[in-house]
């Protein structure tokens, strides 16, 4: 350090700190202002947002107003509006003179009142204060003297100076009187003014309502209102506070456009001269789904219950969106935004509002079941049957114990009664014993109910995969190990995931399966006609669930297996039985004894070896048996021959000969069996398959009901924790190109240490978190690769993200108690059996069959749309139809309602439970009251009958041309149901709506619209009517409906005959395609009968 020169003066005394102080002072002042700025703007970035909002929104409203003004002008051109305006003008002119007069009177009076009021209120205040003192004075003498003061005061006289200058003197009472008098006068005149102006305001309201009703966008007045509101806006925190639910959301402090009544896009909110929407423009948009906001009023629901994020935070965008380390519920990413639905709608299988299905979350919910996630992972609401069944059998057991106990106690009481000392005592004991017997009989009833329950539940219980007890009967033995190696190699679209088994595990597993399977023999089947089988396969509706073809050639639905190579693996005899009725089991299973019951058990009791839904009791112990295969595959009610044909066709579907598979005789090695059992248990195969010895196996995976709210620390990123937290070049751990493709957001480039990242990576490559770890065979992650697509992973991730234990009160969970609950429950069944593969339930929903080439030109061959099914049909009929769609016990190889359809409504053998739920579902979906009370149809007089018949057989709308009649000749070309079914099946009011406008009920139907038109409040037939209709002032529609509901087979035959039932002359070429009834059309159509 250089030597410093020694100062001359004493530095302690003489040194000046002025400069130090100046610098420190300046810095202090700067930090002070900095602190002030930070306090008012730095910590309140929403102020900048609101400033920008004011500027940009006003600018936008200005442009919006000019377009709105134009369209308003157009509306104003309308003569209707002109007339309204005239009315207004007239009313205005009429009311004007009287109005002016009254208004002047009011002004005068108001001035007078003011003058009196000034004096009066002052005096009154004094008098009131004095009165209070009197009231509270403790001494009687004090009271008296004060009373005197008050009386004196009220006697005093004061001067009031009126506006016109003259003065008057009043005492207190007079003053009060005058004041009230003037006020009454004013009230009276105001009321009169209201009366005078009433026609004017009414006309004015009519005008503005007219404009509002006839303009698509907002009116200029409304826009002006918005603009005024925006311009006058003072920066402040906008907050939704729902105390009950502990919601405090300040999101709208920045997102100011969310609830604006005008559509705002980022593009219109860009600042002038910008090319891309900046963060402000992005923030100011209106909610993308205003419809959702109507159902979920933000004032009740806030924002964060659906979107998550930190609703209270206002200091930065990251904080508010919860995108920082310490906020546990960050905003859902845009692509997963529907996860928010799941937090409250976990009990719903299908989420739709209005006409929109919420595809991402619905797909997720669907995939979770369809792809067998439920097999390993419990999820509240999914696959409830086994649990319910368990609790039912527990209850039965308990009740039975109670019964035995009661019987014992009863016997004991009787014994005591015999030995009783007195008659009274004996009687009492006897009574107790009798009471116990009654209790037992009640218990019997309860047990019976529970037995029904378990019968239903047993029927409802389904497995995702096939029953592997049947492998010996069903499969090509040598094919099994090849399949287990990698199922997707054989069938790329299969539900069966890839388990990464090594050869030894494959051998052991297949050996166990083979050796534990049934060895029963199957009836031999005759070979069928593959050609005819193909036709049946393609036309009966198999393709609504199954697909066939590979790659681009794939045809059909994704719900069930792709059958392209089924010929390589399947056994013909088994396949025929399966196609004929997939539910037919080889042997029934008794869950009580935990064994498969065979003919020997029946023989022991001398019973015939017969088990089906009607014979479902165990011969050994009387408990409910599992008598069906646990598959959702229904019976198409094909004849045995048809089933053989289809099976023969399917066996032709192969790429290589079944015999070309490598020999797998190791499967008979009994030494492998035990090990196979171990691996089957280890991999949880029984989650999806029925396997001998694993009937009661639990799920091996973790429960996922609340997976989304698991702390991130509990998700094991293993060796990729740091990688995921830091992102960067090597952020992506997956290297397999096939699995990389599955990632919805592509390979990770930045940090992915969050739930979304974990789920997506886990689903794309389940073993990814084992990478780099040294683990034994049994320790390695077991989750198989479910080979999902990127979209499917996004859907499942959305579901999992939304699977949260929410802090909202229970009332926010969507668990309605009314008919909406029926809808909720129904969807689970509809999805379970893939009803949507054939039927349309929601407008706009595409069914699998709709997309198929086969139906492009013959739309009327598609299964009916069920948009208003509940309103259409009688629920009791529907229940019958669903349990047996052929509507016949003898002739089952047909459709009951629409015999003309090639595609077949299958028999799903729904349990009573599911039937009940389905019927209620349809009722609720169409807002039909429960219970259903059938509408009475009035009997027609013979004149009315004649009139109705003329409509029914009118050449302008020959009903029987398209509708089936039961005449086989005709029914071949019919494209609509038989009228004879109507009485039992349909609801009259729906039929009336239907014939008036079928397109509104089922868009695209071949039933023609415009058959009736409205004339003078009366529905009349659009075509020519016979003279008997003259003077008939009832609706023609009602007449026709009543007729249809009273139609007898004889009548129908008569009409058909009278129409010159010449089916040959009516061209079978799409008779339903005429959309409108026009005279020329009808003439042409009935030319033959004239």
């Amino acid at each position, binding site marked *: 350090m250089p030597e410093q020169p*020694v*100062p*001359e003066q*004493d*530095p*302690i*005394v003489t040194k000046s*700190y002025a400069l*130090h*102080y100046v610098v*420190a*002072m300046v*810095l*202090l002042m700067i*930090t*002070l202002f*900095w*602190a002030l700025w*930070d306090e008012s703007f*730095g910590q309140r970035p929403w102020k900048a947002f609101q400033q920008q909002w004011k500027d940009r929104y006003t600018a936008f409203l200005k442009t919006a107003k000019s377009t709105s003004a134009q369209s308003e002008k157009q509306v104003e051109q309308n003569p209707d509006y002109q007339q309204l305006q005239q009315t207004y003008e007239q009313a205005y002119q009429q009311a004007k003179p009287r109005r002016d007069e009254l208004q002047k009177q009011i002004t005068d009076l108001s001035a007078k009142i003011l003058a009196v009021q000034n004096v009066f209120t002052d005096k009154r205040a004094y008098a009131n204060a004095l009165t209070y003192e009197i009231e509270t004075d403790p001494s009687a003498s004090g009271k008296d003297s004060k009373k005197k003061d008050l009386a004196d005061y009220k006697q005093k006289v004061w001067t009031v100076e009126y506006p016109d200058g003259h003065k008057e003197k009043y005492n207190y009472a007079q003053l009060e009187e005058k004041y009230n008098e003037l006020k009454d006068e004013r009230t009276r005149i105001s009321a009169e003014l209201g009366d005078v102006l009433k026609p004017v305001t009414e006309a004015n309201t009519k005008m503005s309502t007219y404009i509002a009703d006839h303009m698509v966008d907002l009116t200029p007045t409304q826009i002006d209102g918005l603009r005024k509101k925006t311009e006058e806006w003072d920066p402040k925190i906008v907050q939704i506070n729902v105390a009950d639910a502990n919601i405090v959301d300040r999101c709208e402090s920045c997102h100011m456009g969310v609830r604006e009544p005008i559509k705002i896009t980022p593009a219109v909110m860009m600042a002038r001269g910008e090319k891309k929407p900046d963060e402000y423009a992005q923030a100011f948009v209106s909610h993308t789904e205003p419809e959702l906001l109507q159902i979920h009023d933000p004032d009740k629901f806030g924002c964060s219950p659906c979107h998550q994020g930190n609703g209270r935070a206002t*200091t930065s965008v990251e904080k508010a969106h919860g995108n920082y380390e*310490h*906020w*546990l519920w960050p905003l859902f990413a845009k692509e997963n935004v529907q996860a928010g639905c799941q937090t409250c709608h976990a009990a719903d299988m299908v989420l739709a509002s209005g006409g929109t299905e919420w595809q991402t979350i619905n797909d997720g919910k669907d995939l979770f079941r369809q792809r067998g996630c439920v097999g390993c992972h419990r999820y509240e609401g999914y696959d409830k049957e086994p649990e319910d069944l368990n609790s039912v059998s527990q209850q039965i057991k308990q009740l039975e114990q109670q019964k035995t106990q009661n019987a014992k106690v009863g016997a004991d009481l009787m014994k005591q009664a015999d030995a009783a000392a007195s008659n009274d005592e004996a009687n009492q004991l006897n009574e107790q014993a009798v009471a116990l017997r009654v209790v037992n009989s009640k218990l019997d009833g309860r047990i019976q109910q529970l037995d029904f329950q378990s019968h239903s539940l047993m029927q409802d219980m389904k497995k995702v995969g096939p029953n592997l007890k049947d492998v010996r009967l069903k499969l090509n033995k040598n094919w099994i190990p090849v399949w287990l190696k990698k199922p997707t190699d054989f069938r790329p679209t299969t539900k069966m995931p890839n388990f990464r088994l090594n050869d030894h595990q494959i051998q052991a597993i297949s050996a166990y399966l083979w050796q534990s399977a049934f060895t029963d023999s199957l009836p031999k089947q005759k070979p069928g006609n593959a050609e005819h089988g193909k036709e049946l396969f393609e036309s009966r509706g198999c393709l609504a669930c199954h697909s066939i073809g590979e790659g681009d050639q794939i045809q059909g639905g994704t719900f069930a297996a792709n059958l392209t190579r089924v010929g390589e693996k399947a056994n013909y005899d088994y396949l025929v039985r399966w196609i004929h009725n997939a539910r037919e089991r080889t042997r029934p299973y008794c869950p009580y004894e935990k064994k498969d019951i065979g003919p020997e058990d029946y023989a022991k009791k001398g019973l015939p070896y017969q088990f089906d839904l009607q014979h479902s009791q165990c011969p050994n112990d009387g408990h409910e048996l599992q008598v069906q295969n646990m598959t959702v595959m229904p019976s198409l009610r094909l004849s045995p021959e048809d089933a053989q044909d289809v099976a023969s066709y399917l066996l032709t579907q192969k790429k290589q000969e079944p015999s070309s598979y490598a020999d797998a005789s190791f499967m008979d090695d009994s030494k492998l069996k035990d090990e196979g059992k171990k691996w089957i248990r280890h991999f949880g195969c029984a989650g999806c398959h029925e396997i001998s010895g694993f009937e009661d196996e639990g799920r091996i995976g973790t429960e996922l009901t609340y997976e989304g709210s698991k*702390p991130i*620390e*509990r998700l094991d990123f*293993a*060796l990729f*924790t*740091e990688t995921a937290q*830091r992102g960067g070049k090597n952020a992506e751990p997956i290297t397999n190109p096939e699995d990389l493709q599955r990632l919805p957001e592509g390979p990770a480039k930045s940090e992915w240490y969050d739930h979304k990242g974990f789920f997506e990576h886990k689903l794309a490559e389940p073993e990814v978190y084992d990478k780099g770890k040294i683990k034994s065979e049994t320790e390695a992650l077991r989750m198989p690769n479910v080979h999902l697509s990127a979209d499917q992973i996004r859907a499942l991730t959305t579901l999992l993200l939304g699977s949260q234990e929410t802090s909202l009160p229970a009332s926010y969970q969507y668990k309605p108690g009314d008919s909406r609950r029926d809808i909720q429950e129904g969807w689970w069944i509809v999805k379970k059996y893939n009803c949507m593969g054939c039927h349309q339930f929601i407008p706009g929903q595409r069914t699998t069959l709709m997309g198929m080439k086969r139906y492009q030109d013959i739309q009327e061959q598609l299964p009916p749309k069920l948009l208003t099914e509940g309103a259409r049909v009688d629920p009791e009929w529907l229940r019958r139809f669903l349990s047996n769609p052929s509507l016949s016990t003898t002739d089952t190889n047909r459709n009951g309602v629409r015999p003309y359809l090639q595609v077949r409504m299958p028999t799903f053998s729904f349990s009573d439970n599911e039937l009940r739920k389905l019927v209620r579902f349809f009722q609720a979906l169409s807002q039909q009251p429960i219970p259903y009370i059938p509408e009475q149809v009035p009997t027609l007089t013979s004149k009315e009958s004649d009139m109705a018949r003329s409509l029914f057989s009118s050449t302008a709308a020959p009903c029987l041309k398209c509708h089936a009649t039961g005449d086989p000749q005709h029914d071949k070309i019919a494209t609509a149901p038989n009228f004879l079914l109507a009485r039992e099946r349909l609801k009259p009011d729906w039929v009336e709506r239907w014939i008036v406008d079928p397109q509104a009920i089922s868009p695209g139907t071949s039933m023609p619209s415009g058959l009736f038109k409205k004339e003078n409040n009366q529905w009349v037939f659009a075509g020519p009517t016979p003279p008997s209709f003259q003077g008939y002032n009832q609706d023609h529609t009602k007449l026709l409906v009543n007729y249809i509901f009273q139609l007898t087979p004889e009548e129908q035959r008569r009409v058909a005959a009278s129409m010159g039932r010449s089916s040959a002359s009516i061209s079978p070429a799409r008779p339903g395609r005429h959309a409108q009834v026009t005279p020329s059309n009808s003439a042409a159509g009935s030319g033959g009968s004239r």
Partner: protein
Amino acid sequence: MDWRQLWEIVSAPDNVPIVGLIPLLIFYIYLAWKQAKANDDLIAELETNPAMAKTHHRKTWPFRPGWQKEVHVWPFLLRIEFLAAMIVSIVLMVWSITLSAPLEEPSNPNLTMNPAKAPWYFLGLQEMLVYFDPWIAGVVMPTLIIIGLMAIPYIDTNPLGSGYYTWKQRKFSIGTFLFGFIVLWVAMIIIGTFIRGPGWQWFWPGQTWDHNRLIYEVNRDLPDLFGITSNLAKAIFGAIVVGGFYVIGGFIMHALFRRYNPKDYKRMSLLQYSIMMFFVLSMVALPAKMLLRLAWHIKYVWITPWFNV
């Protein structure tokens, strides 16, 4: 070398005081040492020149006539203190504007953070928990520290060195302070901040704080090394070792103190001296125990049913 990990630790708002503490501490020790040196030189000079000592202005500058030996507090001291107060205000304001207090997630009794760290000024105490049982580290030691600090004015009989920096006149007290504060307290805070990672494991700076890290370490108690199994024998053995530490350490310390601080020794009463010895030995015990634990994995020396040392 995991620079990112290092940066994450250093830049955490919680750790800013400690990061600031290191250079500040070095600077102020340097400053104090520099002034002490100048003062010591001046003292030495004045001791050889009693005439000068009478008139000298007691500043480290060479003698100038007319410079004052004493000045008033106001304004000469206060103006500097006020300036310092302003500077500190500026620093605090800038700090509070730029770094907000880290507010963490809502507490979850099912999930504790890992590593769970005390506020920085208590990290030394938390680090002590590694070496002693909670009763000793959490209650006895802090009490001793407080009592020891309170006792200092009564033990310290040295009248010199008040109002100016000096080393030569207060070697023992300054040395003890540096050892007790810098080595024990600050060093342990630094260990707690920068070294202790998930699972309170020892991570060298630049090592990744891996939550899944596994290390093999077995701690033993000293009696186990000697094959002592019975509880009573363990307690007696431990008492002997601890007692031995105080006795032998006491003799060594006594010899050193007499040799290097004869003046202080002479001034002190037996009570003062023995209290000082007890605190000094207890203070030395801490690094001794740390060494046993870190180098030889010895958990406890003295095991009793009531406390472990």
